[in-house]
């Protein structure tokens, strides 16, 4: 039996965590499971709202089993009760399944995520708080005058140099993806005006600041925040994973792409290498029987009717749902309550399905799993995010850059492969959205194969933040 303890730091810090280990192993040994085919993987799930129970079992192929333990919650469970959780996990596949087994990126959790951004205004009305308040620290990391000033002055230096060589285009494009409430754009543009007046080259006249976001609601709020910059700013609703569809006209023209807290919210698969064999993690969203019963009862439907009702919510949103079913949902607020209840109860079960060759796995339409080989199959067992959505977005963004342009991205990045051995990096729930840390080494590798250097640095503007700053620009 393998026992894989990931939360290295927490093991040192938490006596409760260490204390849970013994009873779990005792319980496993007392079970009827074939211990030679059992792995025990212990994580520390930092997201208080997540998709996991404290102990779950994951089939590995058709023969082996992985018992996944959340030590944070198990530390709070009485030792005598841990045996029951282990036993239940090894035997239990009950619950109301909301989908068939699918790769992680195809799970319906991403439909919930998309709905959150599309119907953000009604969600916020129901909760009484803006989404930024649900981010760690309570605000986006995107606004900072000093940081903006640094970037702008670097741009001025570059533009002066290009102008001296008669190579400066007439229009100077800056793109922001994931605009939040517009604070970043406002700070940046206000600072740009101030510095441009001092610099004296009138670059502001040539500046084209484009704001792109998936959510029309968010975009409108941001647009209002920068209304005083008038025609310098354009706002575009776009699909973050396919920027070229909307922004193809920017190819080779963009001097700065600024991205904040977007990638951690895009669909991802997970792949694993276990005992030298590569697996895809398949997931299935479900509601525990007890939760399904409670929600069905509360919202006037049967257990059998719950799945179709959830699907309907995800297709048409809470406002149309309340319009189409006024007997069940008297107003959109009640439909949002239903949405929130389901979201809160939503769980994912997982299994490992053997992958028949990395080249058969498609990371994105333009990228096969071959790119993963050096990360996945070289140093023993590992499970990692593929960050498919982030990769698609990132690789779709790089061609937009001017030869001297750069991407600056603030997000939750892993910056080295060994980190996957020491912690849990998602999925978790932020309010109504999904969060996963992004596979930084993979982005770095893919960018490298496209001639871009990628560097990671701690986010400098707020201490104690998990945010990392990625900078990408052409090398050689």
């Amino acid at each position, binding site marked *: 039996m393998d026992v894989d303890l990931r939360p290295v730091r927490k093991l040192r810090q938490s006596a409760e965590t260490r204390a849970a280990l013994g009873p779990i192993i005792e319980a496993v040994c007392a079970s009827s499971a074939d211990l030679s085919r059992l792995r025990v993987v212990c994580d520390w799930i930092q997201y208080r709202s997540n998709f996991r129970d404290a102990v779950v079992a994951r089939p590995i192929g058709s023969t082996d089993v992985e018992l996944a333990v959340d030590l944070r919650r198990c530390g709070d469970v009485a030792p005598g009760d841990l045996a029951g959780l282990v036993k239940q996990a090894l035997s239990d596949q009950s619950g109301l399944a909301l989908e068939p087994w699918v790769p992680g990126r195809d799970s319906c959790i991403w439909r919930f995520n998309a709905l959150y951004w599309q119907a953000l205004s009604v969600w916020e009305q129901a909760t009484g708080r803006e989404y930024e308040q649900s981010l760690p620290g309570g605000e986006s990391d995107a606004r900072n005058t000093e940081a903006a000033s640094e970037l702008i002055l670097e741009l001025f230096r570059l533009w002066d140099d290009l102008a001296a*060589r008669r*190579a400066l285009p007439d229009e100077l494009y800056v793109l922001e993806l994931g605009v939040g409430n517009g604070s970043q754009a406002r700070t940046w543009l206000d600072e740009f005006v101030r510095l441009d007046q001092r610099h004296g080259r009138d670059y502001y006249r040539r500046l084209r600041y484009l704001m792109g976001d998936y959510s029309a609601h968010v975009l409108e709020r941001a647009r209002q925040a920068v209304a005083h910059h008038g025609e310098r700013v354009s706002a575009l609703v776009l699909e973050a994973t396919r920027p070229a569809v909307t922004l193809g006209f920017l190819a080779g023209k963009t001097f700065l792409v600024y991205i904040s807290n977007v990638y951690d919210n895009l669909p991802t698969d997970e792949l694993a290498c276990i005992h030298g064999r590569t697996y895809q993690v398949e997931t299935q969203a479900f509601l525990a029987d007890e939760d399904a019963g409670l929600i069905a009862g509360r919202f006037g439907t049967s257990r059998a009717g719950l799945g179709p009702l959830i699907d309907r919510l995800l297709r048409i949103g809470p406002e149309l749902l309340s319009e189409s079913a006024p007997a069940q949902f008297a107003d959109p607020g009640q439909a949002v309550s239903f949405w929130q209840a389901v979201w809160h109860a939503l769980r994912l079960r997982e299994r490992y399905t053997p992958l028949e060759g990395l080249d058969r796995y498609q990371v994105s339409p333009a990228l096969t799993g071959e790119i993963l080989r050096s990360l996945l199959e070289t140093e023993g067992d590992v499970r990692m995010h593929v960050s498919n959505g982030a990769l698609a977005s990132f690789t779709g963004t790089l061609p937009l850059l001017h030869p001297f342009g750069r991407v600056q991205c603030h997000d939750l990045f892993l910056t080295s492969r060994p980190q996957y051995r020491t912690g849990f990096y998602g999925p978790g729930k932020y309010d109504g959205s999904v969060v996963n840390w992004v596979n930084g080494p993979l982005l770095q590798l893919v960018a490298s194969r496209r001639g871009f250097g990628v560097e990671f640095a701690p986010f400098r503007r707020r201490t104690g933040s998990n945010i990392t700053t990625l900078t990408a620009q052409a090398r*050689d």
Partner: protein
Amino acid sequence: MVLLPTTVVGSYSVPEWLERLKTEYYQRRISAPHLAEIHEVAIKAAVKDQELAGIDIVSDGELRRDNDVDYFLARIPGVHIPQRAKTDYFDYYDAEVTRPLPDVPEALGLADDFRFTRQLTDRPVKFSFTGPFSLSRRIRDDAYPDPGGLVRALARRLNAEARELAAAGADLLQIDEPFLAGYPEQVELAVEAVNVVTDGVPATWALHVCYGNRYARPSWEGHYDFLFPAVKAARVDQIVLEFARKGLDDLQLIRQHEWDRWLGFGVIDVKTPQVETAELVASRIRRALEYVPADRLMINPDCGLRHLAPEVARRKLRAMVAGAAAVRAELEGGGQT
């Protein structure tokens, strides 16, 4: 030579499987002899592809080369490369010179590369190599107090190699300067070095200047006006320029500066997988004929095809050949073919 002859700039599509095998070599997982055999097979296929597409003047596709710089630097005596293993075959080495390049009669092996290609085809063969200015940009120079010193030394080395190539039968040689557009203020030095390379070598000489094609992206932007009038002092018979991606505005420079030699006219954008139609190619050629007489116009892609998928490269070459043929037929009075 036919009117409006078609050719390639140099590199040909590098399939993904070949990239993987090259990387295996640079990570020392396959041997040099095995990689050499793989290269020979790939070059045969590349030449055949060009013949089937109808290209008049073919190349070896530069398929032996890891990139446009290191293949040469790794062979030049006196250039020190501390770490020769690579994470990816296409990465650049870190190269340095710490003392002036030795004047030793050691061939770089390019003539053997040419001989191999020569025996594969009856068609004329173009052989290209990276010029001294661009090579110098990838070397840390701790040897020459004058920045031009290294460029000139590399030029002398390449001149010796060009003589070997001519002796082996190479009669169309091309110097590629993909870095020059990034240093327009140094065009006189680059031209001076080109003249050292071509000095005394009995061949038709082409000079290719583009805006970079590393990873299918331009490394710089701008206009070719920086080349003129300096390039007129280059002892070359053709300049080979990119137009398909950048647009045709710079054609007026040819007339304005009275360039009276051949123009290798880029009609295929090598930075996009979108395949041009023959009609588009023909329209570009017709536009070029407003500035350059047909008997001094050679038709080629903007740059090497290395970053295009094999099928895309084949289709682009076929479109180029068809477009050139259509205009040729018009000029010869035969109408559309």
